[in-house]
């Protein structure tokens, strides 16, 4: 198959970027999107040009490294799929494919398609955990957890932290990411003790880092490669409201 790529090229965080066309010829439909970029880069290197910088690692859809925006959609248009699991058979012959980095104030561009997502780590550091020191745990079966709760917690915990929700949202809001972590922890009895401080600290950290807030358009849910649901945001908003009120009363 043959394609024209319009790739965002930007030397570093300070310089200006622009779209640059790259021709891709004679690629098998079973090639993955990342491997197609590998082929383009091999060609560029041999011609003495700068290869396209793009983040990727596990190439099996679980590490969350590879998020980029393809034809305006985070991870491309195939539902429930990361870029690294996207294959060229999802495109048509001679398609023009635009590829650009996640665009969000909180995720500055490092180079070409690579962005700095360390803001997500900061949000987690603000409270995305259950405070238990190593060595102090009771027997794992001492706290039974209803299967439905455990399953719902697992649905939320499946988030890979790729940033597709931020990339998709017109407000660059990370609330799908944030609410997934809050839901995962607060659905489990172990996580209930700290639910109030957790939601307050994480939401405040999010605001501080320059992310936007949710205005209920739900694009994030459509683009999430792990199909994390927006009902988590609803739960988070209820928790945040309640925790804020309780904070004032006390």
């Amino acid at each position, binding site marked *: 198959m043959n394609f024209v790529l319009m790739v965002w090229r930007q030397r570093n965080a300070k310089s200006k970027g622009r779209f640059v066309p790259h021709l891709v010829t004679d690629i098998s439909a*079973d090639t993955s999107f990342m491997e197609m970029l590998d082929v383009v880069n091999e060609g560029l290197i041999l011609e003495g040009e700068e290869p396209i910088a793009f983040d990727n*690692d596990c190439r099996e859809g679980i590490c969350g490294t590879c998020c980029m925006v393809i034809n305006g959609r985070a991870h491309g248009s195939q539902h429930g799929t990361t870029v690294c*699991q996207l294959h060229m058979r999802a495109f048509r012959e001679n398609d023009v494919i635009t590829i650009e980095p996640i665009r969000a104030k909180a995720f500055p561009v490092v180079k070409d398609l690579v962005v700095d997502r360390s803001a997500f780590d900061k949000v987690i550091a603000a409270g995305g955990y259950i405070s238990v020191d190593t060595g102090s745990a009771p027997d794992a079966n001492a706290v039974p957890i209803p299967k439905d709760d455990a399953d719902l*917690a697992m649905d939320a915990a499946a988030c890979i932290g790729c940033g597709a929700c931020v990339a998709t949202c017109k407000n660059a809001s990370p609330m799908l990411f944030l609410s997934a972590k809050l839901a995962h922890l607060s659905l489990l009895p172990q996580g209930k003790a700290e639910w109030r401080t957790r939601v307050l600290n994480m939401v405040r950290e999010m605001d501080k880092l320059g992310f936007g807030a949710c205005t209920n358009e739900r694009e994030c849910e459509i683009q999430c490669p792990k199909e994390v649901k927006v009902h988590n945001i609803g739960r988070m908003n209820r928790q945040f409201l309640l925790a804020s009120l309780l904070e004032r009363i006390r």
Partner: protein
Amino acid sequence: MALDARIPSGPLDQKWDRCRSELKLVNPANKRKYTVICVGTGLAGASASASLAELGYNVLTFCLQDSPRRAHSIAAQGGINAAKNYANDGDSIFRLFYDTVKGGDYRSREGNVFRLAQLSVNIIDHCAAQGVPFARDYGGTLVTRSFGGAQVSRTFYARGQTGQQLLLGAYSAMMRQVHEGRVKLFPRREMLDIVLVDGRARGIIVRNLITGQLESYSADAVVLATGGYSNVFYLSTNAMSSNASAIWRAHKRGAYFANPCFTQIHPTCIPVSGHCQSKLTLMSESLRNDGRVWVPKDPADKREPSQIPEDKRCYYLEEKYPSFGNLVPRDVASRNAKEQCDAGRGVGGSGFAVYLDFRDAIARNGVENIEDNYGNLFQMYERITAEDPYNVPMRIYPAPHYTMGGLWVDYHLMSAVPGLFVLGEANFSDHGANRLGASALMQGLADGYFVIPYTVGGYFAGNEFGKVDTSLSAFKGAAAEAEEKTSRLLAINGKRTVADFHRELGMLMWDYCGMSRDEAGLRLALRKIPEIREEFWKNVTVAGAPGEFNQNLERAGRVADFLELAELMVRDALHRKESCGGHFRVESQTEEGEALRDDENYSYAAAWEYTGVDSEPVPHKETLQFENIKLAQRSYK
């Protein structure tokens, strides 16, 4: 130097207690005076960072990914073993210990493995307390499943994402310590060297991958938890950035490399589909709980799998190994798949695949049950192959997956370099010549949560530490060497890409040091590798500049190291003239084609000492003592 593994004497089940109670302690108020560098943030590195910081040590944690949460432990699918005996099926700490030593084909240390089995129980408790969403029954208790090499159900899991959930648990615990200020995090840093002062590990040199600048950090001890080296084969189930550089460079500074030829080829991976292929994807071993492995009896039978009737199918694992069936250990399953394909019975376009069929399990348990247990794996398979495994059997083939070999460590997980500790897949200690499924997660977390917090303390309390900072000449010298290597790579300006060399090396290793090895092939590889290495340093082309974000340069450095490590792997494979576990020497097999060990001559770990790029390494032998297990020919029939 004689190798002292520092395994405590006394009864097996008291060794670890004894070790812990004899280790000197650091006063709680004094812990903050010590700094530990931790490289790598997978299960072992993140859990070590978290638990060391919880004790009060200052921890500097480095990873090459943009976030520590992306380390490749995240891709582990199936589960984690623990001798909880929740299933009431006769499991015990001794049985897990026994299965692991037997699964490793009697090439691991009894003391280490027993400790691992003991700690497995604590890991599940701790992870459940952290909020890891393990699979549960309707009554709210934890459920388990079976994995290869075991006849009990002791594998805990979180759907097909157990590694992800355990890693997020360890990552979260570490991020809590970042918030407390006890862990300082350095993402997007690649370790280029360790720095020794007065013979002890006191720091590291890293490249800041964003700015391209070299940075030096000093500490009182260095912990490496940088994973395995399967990417030496080019195509493997490892992540693209997984590499051997940290352990290889530590090896060059004096750490011994043990059993480098012990590599694991995982039986159930999605087969290679084309020449652009950059990596292979694993399908969890847990699938062998319900999936049945088969090939057509007649090599000429090219019908669609659904058209092949029952009596024309060969369920070769069930037929050959009736008591373990599809759940034989990985090395056995891989070799049998290769044997079937070599005999012409392979399926798919290339003929290098066998079927993994869920038809019977779906008929027995229903689609919903299968979806509940393996949903994400089926989806992953469908994404990659565009085939629906609910209706068409999966096609699978073995691929390089895990490396049992690694830096030699003693019972305290300290390498031959004092103050340099090595955890998880990066060390060699617990899996012998073959790792059983669901044991890697167990080992990484045992090392990080429950071993290193004790042994690092013992090291600090038992030694005097002078102040060291990065202005010392040892740091300056190491940084200058690293800088020089980078400049050399960028100056070659040859005609072949880094990936091209990597592919050539990988194919050579797969052909001659892969699933089966023989003297002639290994000798050929030993001749070829220095040739490829020489050409690499004359004819590679690396794009870009040193002082900027440069992924091609990162990869060039890693491939340069693989080109040296590969030679050591081949040497080790050549010297070990027995078959054991994943190391299958064609010359040494039973009449039935199983791996034939030679306990009289090879019941030891080979720890290699580095002597220079083009000079022969020196082997040191650590004899393995078996006091509690009787050595026997492994049988899974």
